[in-house]
């Protein structure tokens, strides 16, 4: 038996960040990861967006807090360059319908106190001269940006490890067990681990584990795909997206364009148990890119990949302490947009575990918000 103050299940960026902030406060933490690799799920398969615009108001406070207080200092804090750029997010539109979608998103975000506004074709091209002439409007949030998800995930791992966090990979958690009325044990194929607090930050797999103590978190998985080009000359530094979500992405510090997107068939994509590319999605993403950034039509794609997201039934995660199972904490169901809020989630989850004040209002992300039709 191995004991700790807190056990985090899942070594993605969420689990690593939680472990880091707990260790920084002096806790003894163990992180258990099923995969052989740290950050093998969505953490290393996403488009790297660090944005507030386009977010659900329930998770917006985390995005705003992180961008104001954590992301700008993250490379320094963790001792690894995470390639954070705070150069704005353009969400592009071409038609009246797009404009309607973007205006709706913008108005809702303004109501939450976010500095985002609609801009016209002229101003769009002032910001980014490489966009197609067809782009007629955009929402513009100057404080949005992007970072390198591979590095940010491993930076939290590296820094947490230096603070003494014990990471164990290839260790799949099989079940959870209560002792004397409270959650206490984590059971794997190799060992039994015990801790006062157990945080589930393992995406879709958190559903099966939480079920061992009678909690159901309504998530399903969906496959998303990304592609990356070879290094191109420096073109622009903003994060880009579109009204219809044809694609989203940015030019990385390295010069390559990292771009994600969808074919619309994600929910029914076939897979054989590994997150594998379909034959149609990269083509679909490429068509979307060429429509908006014609100059990239000759950029060479060097790699494509896929990853599952843990899609919550209402599109935002559960970040909470479970009242009826003492010792259980949940941070899962990030629904494809967890990367940008990961630092704020890590900090707040650590505070929740330690019983300290939170820096953000996360009351909209409670585990018990799901109710069947009346």
């Amino acid at each position, binding site marked *: 038996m191995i004991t700790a103050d807190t056990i985090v299940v899942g070594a993605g960026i969420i689990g690593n960040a939680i472990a880091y902030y707990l260790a920084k406060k002096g806790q003894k933490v163990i992180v258990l990861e*099923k*995969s*052989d*690799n*740290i*950050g*093998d799920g969505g953490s*290393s398969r996403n488009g790297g967006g660090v944005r507030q615009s386009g977010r659900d108001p329930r998770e917006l406070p985390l995005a705003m807090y992180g961008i104001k207080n954590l992301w700008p200092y993250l490379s320094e804090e963790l001792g690894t360059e995470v390639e954070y750029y705070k150069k704005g997010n353009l969400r592009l539109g071409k038609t009246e319908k797009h404009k309607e979608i973007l205006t709706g998103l913008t108005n809702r975000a303004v109501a939450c106190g976010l500095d985002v506004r609609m801009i016209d074709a002229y101003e769009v091209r002032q910001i980014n001269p490489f966009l197609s002439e067809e782009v007629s409007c955009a929402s513009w949030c100057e404080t949005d940006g992007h970072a390198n998800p*591979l*590095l940010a*995930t*491993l930076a939290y*791992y*590296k820094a947490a*490890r*230096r603070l*003494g966090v*014990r*990471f*164990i*990979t*290839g*260790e*799949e958690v099989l079940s959870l067990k209560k002792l004397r009325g409270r959650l206490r044990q984590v059971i794997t194929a*190799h060992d039994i681990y015990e801790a006062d607090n157990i945080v589930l930050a393992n995406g879709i797999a958190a559903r099966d584990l939480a079920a061992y103590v009678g909690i159901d978190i309504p998530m399903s998985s969906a496959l998303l795909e990304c592609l990356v*080009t*070879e290094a191109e000359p420096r073109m622009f530094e903003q994060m880009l997206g579109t009204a219809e979500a044809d694609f989203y992405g940015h030019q990385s510090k*390295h010069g390559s364009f990292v771009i994600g997107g969808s074919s619309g068939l994600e929910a029914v994509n076939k897979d054989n148990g590994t997150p594998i*590319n379909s034959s*149609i999605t*990269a*083509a679909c993403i*490429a*068509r979307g*890119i*060429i429509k908006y950034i014609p100059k*990239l*039509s*000759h*950029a*060479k*794609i*060097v*790699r*494509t*990949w896929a990853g599952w997201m843990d899609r919550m039934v209402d599109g935002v995660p559960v970040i909470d302490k479970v009242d009826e199972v003492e010792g259980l904490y949940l941070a899962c169901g990030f629904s494809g947009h967890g990367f940008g809020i990961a630092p704020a989630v890590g900090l707040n989850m650590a505070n929740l575990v330690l019983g300290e004040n939170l820096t953000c209002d996360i009351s909209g992300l409670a585990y018990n918000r799901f109710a069947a039709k009346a």
Partner: protein
Amino acid sequence: MHELVDRSLKDEEFEEREDDDMLICRCEEITKGEIRRAVHDGMYTMAEIRRYLRCTMGLCQGQTCAKLVKGIVAKELGVSPDKLEPATSRSPMRPTEMYIIANEEK
């Protein structure tokens, strides 16, 4: 196959070597010393090494240096290179221009 690996910090200082400046990944210009240091910092698998350093992620997609990188990582970890899973190969086989991939017409 998943294998249990404890990533706890080892109580060893990083030791620089004479040949640390040697270029291993030519596409991304990564040296032997950078790879050795990455292992010391906790990057234990080929997937982690490439995500952390970019080596084997350039134009040749590791066709030139993947074996060399693997040899260095294995030596640092003190295991045989065939114990290390190669990083996943990804499509397309060769760098392909965006307009070619985009064209679905027959």
